[in-house]
């Protein structure tokens, strides 16, 4: 069978999202076997099932087959349809888990995507909605995805384990993406942050701000951390607080770091002062890594470079994360694209660690639905 011949096969549940996203974009079916086959509780988890349901909602004609134990998944992608969608995300992972993949897919929909996602907005595992809003959206703008309809709005905040948050994400569609040349990150001109607290004293946020500032002000005077205290129905179902920090450079690069308090009933209580200080140090680590794209969004940048017009794209990155390395391998199997990878040692400059320059020629992916309309 023709479809069977070019079906890609993988083992294990890791990197599930990137495999399904690349499958959807390339049109190649995937088969994932032995999903937690040796686990006491084998098969797909709730949050993965929820992710697959979300893919089914935004596409048209996808074929999804899961065996009885949930250890084998076959996914034959349909067409990216878009439109208005609502989705209740699993509270086991935050909305960021789902949103990261939506950011990869949204520009290639037939109809502009407007989606309401409900669940956990901030947790300790995935990039939070705040960070994605502050870093991934400006990155997409570099590729020419822009306009008034391009928005990510946090309506309600929800912390684990209860969740109860809500965000609205809308993204315009583009026929082609612009190639990028991001080789100089520039210098950090300001640091902005968001200290949030829900169902705890609003004073928590203020304590976070003071401790984070005490570290960051040694480097740059322009540090401003907003406090966000949501009340009533907008504060979700569980108490918690946290901080996200974003450093903005003169060339429009955004580097981020974040921390959240332990979920209610798990682990020991975290002092807001410690959280603020540790988060500030995480931001300094991210600045040390450097590059024109922060470590969370590396794979998003590389994907959009691959799918860009048939022109050279360059991006300077910090050290590649394990997730990005696997993503590069997947890009090779799905799109036959290999990047040129050059190490740029830091040398004598006081600009943090070694950097990596990634170069590729886009495959000239174009959104066909856009022309047919």
């Amino acid at each position: 069978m023709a479809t069977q011949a070019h079906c890609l096969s993988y083992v294990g549940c890791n990197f599930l999202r990137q495999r399904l996203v690349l499958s959807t974009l390339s049109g190649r079916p995937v088969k994932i076997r032995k999903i937690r086959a040796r686990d006491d509780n084998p098969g797909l988890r709730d949050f993965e099932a929820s992710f697959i349901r979300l893919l089914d909602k935004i596409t048209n004609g996808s074929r999804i087959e899961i065996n009885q134990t949930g250890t084998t998944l076959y996914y034959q992608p349909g067409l990216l349809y878009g439109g208005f969608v609502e989705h209740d995300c699993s509270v086991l992972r935050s909305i960021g888990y789902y949103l990261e993949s939506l950011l990869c897919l949204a520009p290639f929909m037939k109809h502009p995507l407007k989606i309401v996602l409900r669940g956990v907005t901030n947790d300790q595992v995935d990039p939070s909605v705040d960070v994605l809003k502050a870093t991934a959206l400006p990155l997409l703008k570099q590729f020419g995805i822009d306009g008034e309809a391009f928005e990510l709005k946090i309506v309600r905040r929800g912390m684990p384990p209860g969740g109860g948050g809500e965000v609205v994400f809308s993204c315009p569609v583009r026929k082609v993406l612009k190639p990028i040349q991001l080789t100089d990150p520039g210098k950090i001109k300001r640091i902005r942050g968001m200290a949030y607290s829900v169902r705890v004293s609003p004073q928590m946020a203020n304590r976070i701000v003071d401790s984070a500032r005490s570290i960051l002000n040694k480097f740059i005077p322009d540090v401003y951390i907003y406090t966000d205290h949501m009340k009533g129905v907008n504060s979700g179902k569980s108490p918690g607080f946290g901080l996200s920090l974003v450093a903005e450079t003169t060339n429009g690069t955004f580097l981020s770091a974040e921390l959240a308090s332990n979920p209610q009933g798990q682990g020991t209580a975290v002092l807001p002062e410690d959280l603020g200080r540790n988060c500030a140090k995480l931001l300094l680590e991210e600045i040390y890594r450097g590059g024109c794209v922060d470590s969370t969004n590396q794979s998003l940048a590389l994907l959009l470079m691959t799918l860009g017009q048939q022109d050279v794209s360059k991006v300077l990155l910090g050290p590649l994360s394990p997730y990005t390395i696997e993503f590069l391998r997947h890009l090779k199997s799905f799109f036959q694209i290999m990047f040129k990878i050059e190490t740029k040692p830091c040398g004598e400059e006081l600009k943090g660690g070694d950097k990596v320059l990634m170069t590729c020629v886009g495959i000239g992916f174009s959104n066909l639905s856009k022309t047919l309309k």
Partner: protein
Amino acid sequence: IRKKHPKPSQVDSGQKLGSENLIDETSDIEDLLKEEEDYKEENNYSPETLGALKWKEDLSRKAAEAFLRQQQAIPNLRKLIYGMVTEDNEEEGDTQEELGGLFRVSQPEGECKHKADSLDCSRFLVEAPHDWDAEEVINSIKDCFVTGKWEDDK
């Protein structure tokens, strides 16, 4: 027959250039390693020319060793990323070793298998955090900020 004979002088300049071109380096090093093997073979065939070729052999080995050192210092990312393919092949299961046509050898597939079912998360966790209270660590990122030193052309 190889077309390329890297001379010691080329090798030296290559080292200085560092990681200018990873692809070239990889092919160079392969050539060098091949060369090394070739010389050994030649030596086996004609023992009387051993003395005449000895200086050459030494040079190529030294160059190869120098290159290997260089390679270890700057990890070859391209090889690291694209060298090993983790894609699963269907045939893999069939070619497994069988004992007496009945039992299948269950191989502990170690790291790869361990990774296959781990958490799917895009965050890049900091494994060895720096001590951000130390003066020299603070200074290492000083020029990332507008308050630091600017390049002359800006």
